[in-house]
């Protein structure tokens, strides 16, 4: 069997004296949707930040398809094929939806300062192709009609979709979705589930942090449960849901929405 796409080994991190990630190890096969669940403060977003490169782990290794990524700056990690969304959407203000997604296309396009200054003679074709591809991605996500609107003025749910489009524009191998269902109503969540399934269909591996159990149960192939920075269970959704330690950790946590 081929090696997993993502392998995390012995990850440790501290914020001040707080041991926020405590010996976390897991792996993720290519082509699946894997959910990371856990109560608030368990360290899920920190884990994402470590994988995406915005934080350098104190200890441990993160290997993407054989390449060590721990310690690389975020733009290098992105260049290796990891793309992400953020818990609170971080669309670029003052830019349209299409322009936001075009930034996502950065790694798939060419041209530096010199080429940029010389202008369309050199870059027109590449730019036009990028524009078409980005419009295509927006259309697939049902947001094509929003292309020219100012991204940060959109309603919250639409902004999330745009951020996913932007992350997809990077043609990643691994997509990190940080609580994409946060603030969505049940029908929007269902659409999101279909969307994620479609992303998996296109060959992209998805790692998703989520509280919404219906989404987790419905769309993920594997689940990793963490609590207080430590891994407590890993397996299929059914297995993890039935795990006694998971049940114990969740009982009494009012922030988890049950299916």
């Amino acid at each position, binding site marked *: 069997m081929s090696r997993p796409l993502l392998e995390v080994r012995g990850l440790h991190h501290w914020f001040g004296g707080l041991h926020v990630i405590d010996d976390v190890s897991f792996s993720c096969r290519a082509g699946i949707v894997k959910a990371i669940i856990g109560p608030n403060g368990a360290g899920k977003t920190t884990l994402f930040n470590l994988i995406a490169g915005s934080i350098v782990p104190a200890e441990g290794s993160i290997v993407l398809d054989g390449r060590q990524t721990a310690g690389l700056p975020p*733009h290098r990690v*992105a260049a290796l094929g990891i793309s992400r969304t*953020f818990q609170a959407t971080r669309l*670029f203000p003052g830019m349209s939806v299409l322009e936001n997604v075009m930034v*996502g296309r950065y790694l798939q396009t060419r041209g530096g300062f010199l080429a940029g200054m010389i*202008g369309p003679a050199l*870059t027109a074709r590449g730019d036009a192709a990028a524009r078409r591809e980005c419009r295509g991605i927006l259309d697939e996500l049902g947001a094509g009609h929003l292309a020219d609107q100012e991204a940060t003025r959109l309603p919250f749910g639409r902004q999330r979709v745009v951020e996913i489009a932007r992350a997809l524009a990077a043609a990643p191998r691994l997509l990190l979705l940080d609580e994409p269902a946060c603030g969505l109503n049940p029908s929007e969540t269902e659409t999101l589930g279909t969307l994620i399934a479609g992303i998996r269909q296109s060959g992209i591996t998805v790692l998703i942090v989520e509280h919404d159990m219906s989404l987790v149960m419905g769309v993920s192939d594997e689940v990793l449960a963490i609590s207080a920075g430590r891994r407590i269970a890993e397996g299929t959704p059914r297995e993890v849901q039935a795990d006694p330690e998971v049940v114990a950790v969740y009982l009494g946590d009012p922030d988890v929405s049950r299916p």
Partner: protein
Amino acid sequence: MKAYLTRYLPILGLAILVAALQAALSALKLEYYMTQLTMAAYYTLVSLGLCLLMGYAGQVSMGHGGFFAIGGYGAAVIAGLGIASWLSIPAAVLIAALVAAAVGVPALRLRGHYLAMATLAFGIIVLRVLLGTKLFGEADGLSDIPGFRLFAGIAISGKRALRVQNYYIAWTLVVVGMLLAVNLVNSRVGRALRAIHGNEDAAAAMGVPVARYKLATFVLSAVYAALGGACLAHFNGGIGPGEASVLKSVRYVALVAAGGMGSLWGTLAVSTVLTFLSLRGAFGLYDDAVFGAILVVIMLFAPDGILRLLGIRR
């Protein structure tokens, strides 16, 4: 296609306006205005570069007068060495670029107030060095700077006979500078810069090499400034330490702010008009006060610049 028209038509318009203005001034025997318009053009180059840095990459610089001065003094000193007359401007600009790279690497790791203060300190250091060094003429600056021969009979120089010529040289530089800047802003790099300005972490997550781009923009803006300084030194035949003063540096910031941080055309318009008026002495003794007031008023009431206020986008 329409996008290209909106992008390049104004540049063509600018070129036509420049020529028309020259024709009008010559016809009305008001040619002496061209001297100040030429100088205004060189100062506007600084503002354009600063607009790229502040408006697009979102990095503040309170020391761009320092780069203008490095360009001007560099050209003057190198021309004075008498080695090769074509060397002064390119060499001065190169020196400014190297200094910008050296200063930029550590400075651009800073944000907000710290970056502003670091660039302010840089400008003051340049000023003090100029004031304290014999080679740079101390408080008197440098004079008797020869003209800069371009080709045939064309030279950057303050000679009365070459006035019209120099007006066109200066404004050609501005038009070309504008063309390059407009292209850059609409390119992949331009989008990346705006993304950096909008949210650095998200930009990095999309693969944009944030630190490298900030540095490149900083150096590019220094190149614009130094080019303006070097050409002005040859045109005026002299340069003084005041070019590196805090007030001068703040002026450029005021012009970019008033033009609308992210607007190249706004910056061009505001910079040309206000610099020309200032050079003509229109503000009298209140020259510096005017620019200070502009900063305050614009930032209080129209932080997106005057053009936005008038309803004009970009």
